[in-house]
């Protein structure tokens, strides 16, 4: 298969970027999107041009490192991550536009690579259960109904790629935050810190420059882990009640 790529090139965090056009020739249709980029990069290097820098690691859809916006859609067509996108999804001769995730809180480092440490900062704000190593009771001492464990797992499946924020017109990371709040808050082990966790993560998200949710559901549409936007509703409920109780002095966050 043959394609024309329009690729975002940017030399560094503070320089201006631009699109450049490269041919992608003789690409096997079994190749993944990133393997197609590997082939193009190898051709670029042979021609003495620096390769396109893009983040990737596990290439099996789980590490969350790959972060390309393809034809305007984070991770491109289909439900998976960029690395799980295969060229058979495209038509021979297609022009494919490749950009980094565009989110204010994810500054571009170079070409298609962005800095997503903001997501780590949200987790630092409260996205954990305090459980000192060695202090845990027997794992079966607290039975957890299967439906609860399953729902928690649905939320825990988030891979932290940030596509939700990249797809959102408000650059909101609410899907990411809500998934973490639900993953931990649904479990009995996560209840004691549940309110504090939610409020702190939401406020940190705001401070980092992510926007708010206004119900576009673009996040859910691009999420490679299939996280449901209903977790955002759950987050809003919990945040509202906790913030109200805080406002009247009924609780301390």
């Amino acid at each position, binding site marked *: 298969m043959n394609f024309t790529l329009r690729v975002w090139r940017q030399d*560094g965090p503070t320089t201006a970027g631009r699109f450049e056009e490269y041919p992608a020739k003789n*690409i*096997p249709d*079994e*190749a993944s999107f*990133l*393997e197609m980029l*590997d*082939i193009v990069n*190898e051709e670029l*290097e042979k021609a*003495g*041009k620096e*390769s396109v*820098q893009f*983040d*990737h*690691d*596990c*290439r*099996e*859809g*789980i*590490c*969350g*490192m790959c972060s390309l916006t393809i034809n305007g859609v984070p991770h491109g067509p289909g439900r998976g991550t960029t690395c*799980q996108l*295969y060229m058979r999804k495209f038509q021979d001769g297609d022009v494919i536009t490749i950009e980094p995730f565009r989110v204010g809180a994810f500054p571009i480092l*170079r*070409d298609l690579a962005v*800095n997503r*440490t903001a*997501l*780590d900062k949200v987790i*630092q704000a409260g*996205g*954990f*259960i305090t*459980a000192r*190593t*060695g202090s*845990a009771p027997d*794992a*079966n001492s*607290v*039975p957890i*109904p*299967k439906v609860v*464990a*399953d729902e*928690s*797992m649905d939320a*825990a*499946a988030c891979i*932290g790629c940030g596509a939700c924020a990249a797809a959102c017109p408000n650059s909101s990371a609410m899907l990411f935050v809500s998934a973490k709040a639900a*993953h*931990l808050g649904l*479990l009995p*082990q*996560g209840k004691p810190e549940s309110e504090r966790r939610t409020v702190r993560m939401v406020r940190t998200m705001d401070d980092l420059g992510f926007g708010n949710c206004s119900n576009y559901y673009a996040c859910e549409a691009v999420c490679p882990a299939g996280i449901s936007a209903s977790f955002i509703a759950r987050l809003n409920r919990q945040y509202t009640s906790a913030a109200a109780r805080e406002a009247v002095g009924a609780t301390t966050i």
Partner: protein
Amino acid sequence: MSIDAKIPAGPLDKKWSSYKNTAKIISPANKRKFKIIIVGSGLAGASAAATLGEQGFNVECFCYQDSPRRAHSIAAQGGINAAKNYQNDGDSTFRLFYDTIKGGDFRAREANVYRLAEVSANIIDQCVAQGVPFAREYGGLLANRSFGGAQVSRTFYARGQTGQQLLIGAYQGLEAQVAAGTVKMHSRTEMLDLVLVDGHAKGIIVRDMVTGEIRAHAADTVLLCTGGYGNVFYLSTNAKGCNVTATYRAYKKGAYFANPCYTQIHPTCIPVSGDYQSKLTLMSESLRNDGRVWVPKRKEDCGKAPADIPEDARDYYLERKYPSYGNLAPRDISSRSAKEVCDEGRGVGPGGLGVYLDFGDAIKRLGQNVVAERYGNLFEMYENITGESAYERPMRIFPAVHYTMGGLWVDYNLMSNIPGLHVLGEANFSDHGANRLGASALMQGLADGYFVIPYTIGDYLNTQFGKAKPDVNSAPFQDALAAVKARTSQLLSIKGNRTVDSFHRELGHIMWDNCGMARTKESLTAAIDKIPKLREEFWKNVNVLGKGETLNQSLEKAGRVADFLEFGELLCRDALQRNESCGGHFRSEYQTPDGEALRDDEHYAHVACWKFEGENATPTRLEEPLSYETVKLATRSYK
């Protein structure tokens, strides 16, 4: 030269508890005075960072990814073993210990493995407490499944994403410590050398992968948690960034590299489809719980659609050869059996390099819903990559490089022969012998980080009171810094005609063809002849574009491939010197009449430790004898 593993005295089942009772402890007031460098943030690194930070040490953690949550532990699918005996099926600490020793083909250290089995139960408790959503039964208790090489169900799992959930648990613990100020995280930072001060590991040289700055970090002790070296084969199930640089650089500074030839080929991966391919994708071994492995009995049937091959024309070769373990035979045996049937010309799919993993019976027995609940995400992944639905036709699978049991040599304290250098997780050699059982890598990574190093690190740190703190401006640091800078400039200045990837692919072919699932004296000698030539060409003809002062992925790869080009030779040398077959190391010259691995306990019941002797000099091979006090060496049989 004698190698002292510092195994505590006493009966096997009392060693760890008596060690803990008498271990040297650092008082809370002193902990914050010690700085610990941790390289790598996978299960071993993140759990160590979280726990040591929580204990009050001053921790600095480094990873090459953009976030510690992305380390490749995340990709482990199937599960984690623990001797909980929740299923009341006869499991025990001893049984897990014995299965692991036997699974490792009697080439692991008894005391380390017993400790691993002992702490396995604590790991599950810890993970549940921190919110890992393990699979549960309707009654609310934890569910288990069985895994290769075991006759009990001791594997805990979170759908097909167990590694992800365990890593996120450890990562969250680590981030909590970042927030508490005890851990400082350096993401997108790659270790390029180890610094020794008076023979002790006291720091590292790193490159900031965004700005290109090369700088030194000093500490009281260094923990390498940098994973395995499977990418020396180019194609493997490892992440693209996984590399041997940290451990290989430590080797070049004097740390022994133990058993590099013990590499694991995983039996259930999606077959290779072409030269462009950048990595191989694993299908969890848990699929073998319900999938049946077969190939056609007759070569002529290989081109037919699987549905057109009647039951009596199929060879369920694992069930035939290993009736008691069947499709759950250990990884090395399953992989080798797949290679055998393909060598006989009975492989399926493009190039005849594949076997079927068939869920037809499971779907009939359990219904598609149950199969989907157990393996849905794996079936989706398979369909996405191959365009075929495994609900409708059998999966095609083939073995691929997956895990490396060899690694830096460590003693019972997880310290290498370099004082102050600790090595955890896949990066060390200690627990899996010549073959690792499924669901044991996650167990080992977390055991080392949560439950072993926090107790054993005091043994070294207690000797460091009153010693001058290492200074990054001192000669050892500045010399190492200058060497790393010189090497980086050299890579950028060659400006040859070949890309880094082309060298890596060629090395991978040499390794896979000569040192893969089966090895011979001839193939290994050939590889040892070819690799130095390729290495020489690399240093003359590689083309690394761009600058050192920016994000430059070609430069990152070049440094890693340069180390693989040296390390590959070491791996082949180790394979050549081990004149026996054991676990993942199969030397065709040493096999039983029915094709099983033939060990030579008289001459090879030892750990091979390789000592660096200088550039282009032949390394020295030292031996740590393995003395079995509890287990009787036996022929490993899964029949």
